[in-house]
């Protein structure tokens, strides 16, 4: 972006918005919007509290558990659907429906099934992340070169060796792409789950802050969450770069 002939760096717009926020906050126009400097101060204080640290640990644990479950279920299911036609016919429709459905609507059902606790959050992460992993794994397995499979068979590969040494490796770029998209969806799952359950982790903190009108802390927590989501996306993008290198090397 250029302004009056000067080149302005990308982060400058962020500074402008922060400044605008600060001015509006100082004017005391809207009760909901404390000055940005107050929010920053609240953030610094917040990360030192044990309630924030506990909530972060809970959130990360639920996210990691849910993702681990989604990957350990999603990849084998995708392989099964990619290789066995009956499984594909039976499950294909459901996987497609779930991968595009508004899953937030199902979180209240999860609460009934799993109670108001961490298990519901884990289930939400799983539910958000698993379908895209299944779909991408299936696509990868279907595109494994038939001659590679014939090669393994002609040199006497057993069924387990065929899967472990050929099919999983040949489908790896797609499997990793599915996991990347699954991770991003999993972040959504953990946030939506916690907000709806509202007594676990960040959800409980949000509830406390908004109910007691502690707006500075409320905004501080929002910013921390956004920063975390961006960090994950950035991290995954870096891994993706390596996967793309690998995908190029397949030709």
């Amino acid at each position: 972006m250029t302004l009056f002939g000067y080149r302005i760096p990308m982060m400058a717009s962020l500074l402008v918005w922060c400044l605008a926020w600060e001015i509006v906050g100082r004017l005391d126009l809207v009760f909901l919007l404390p000055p940005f400097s107050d929010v920053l101060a609240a953030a610094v204080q917040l990360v030192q509290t044990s309630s924030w640290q506990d909530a972060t640990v809970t959130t990360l644990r639920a996210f990691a558990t849910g993702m681990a479950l989604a990957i350990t279920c999603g990849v084998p299911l995708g392989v099964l659907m990619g290789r066995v036609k009956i499984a594909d016919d039976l499950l294909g429709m459901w996987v497609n429906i779930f991968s595009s459905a508004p899953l937030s609507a199902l979180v209240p059902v999860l609460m009934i099934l799993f109670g108001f606790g961490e298990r519901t959050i884990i289930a939400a992460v799983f539910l958000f992340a698993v379908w895209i992993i299944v779909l991408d794994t299936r696509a990868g397995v279907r595109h494994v070169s038939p001659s590679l499979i014939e090669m393994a068979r002609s040199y006497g590969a057993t069924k387990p060796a065929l899967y472990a040494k050929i099919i999983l490796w040949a489908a790896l770029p797609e499997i990793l792409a599915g996991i990347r998209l699954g991770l991003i969806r999993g972040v959504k799952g953990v946030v939506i789950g916690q907000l709806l359950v509202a007594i676990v982790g960040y959800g409980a903190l949000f509830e406390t802050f908004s109910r007691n009108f502690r707006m500075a802390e409320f905004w501080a927590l929002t910013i921390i969450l956004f920063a975390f989501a961006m960090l994950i996306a950035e991290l995954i993008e870096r891994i993706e770069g390596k996967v793309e290198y690998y995908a190029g090397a397949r030709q």
Partner: protein
Amino acid sequence: MAVTALREKQSTVHTSLEAIVEVKGICKSYGNVEALRDIDLDFPRGKLTSLLGPSGCGKTTLLKIIAGLIGASAGSVTVDGKHVSGPGPERAFVFQDFALMPWATVLRNVAFGLELRGTGKTEREETARRYIAQVGLSGFEDKYPHELSGGMRQRVGLARALSVDAEVLLLDEPFSAVDEQNRRKFQEDLIRLRSAQNKTFIFVTHSIEEAVYISDRIVLLSPRPGRVSQVIEPDIDRSGDPDSIHRDQRYLDTVEEIWQGLKQYVE
């Protein structure tokens, strides 16, 4: 009729040679499409036999039936007297599109057949290195397939087939995805490799020149459905300079003879 007579004459010649692969009454249909009809063939031990014919004559199908990769609709294949019901260690396959694992180095690709058999790492890598050297790829052991040219990739495929020490090598148009210059070089190398190894080769090709250049026997297949139309034994001396074969009168005559026979199938 002349063709039938010739075929009979040829088959009497071959009963004297010991056959390692015997194909009896093989038929193959895909739904209503008849790919192969009643194929009877013997492949003599230690010889290179080409299956030659226009596209759609089922030559690759026949080779894959011998490999045990696809089942026949009728008939049987025996290798060394044993009935073929699937792939076996006495047969090794070289693929048209190389079928190399892109995530594995040349060394691991060549050793893969042995890896599947459970051979120890040091032993199989030693064997693989020996065959990599034999096909002229020394120094490329740690490269990945995408770093090699098409000709070099097929050398990897050939080294993999050689390293499992199978008696019968099945080659499915191995040079068709290789450029012309590399193909010439590769054909010369194959003649040289053959004289060093006492193996039986079954070679599928659609190139008349290639078949005559490298084969002891050429089986001509006619298309739709695939049948054996002629068996030819080009009596060419390959012990000397490989380039002189291309100028050998018998080489040129045989190419012409096959072309005259195949012409009728070409639109």
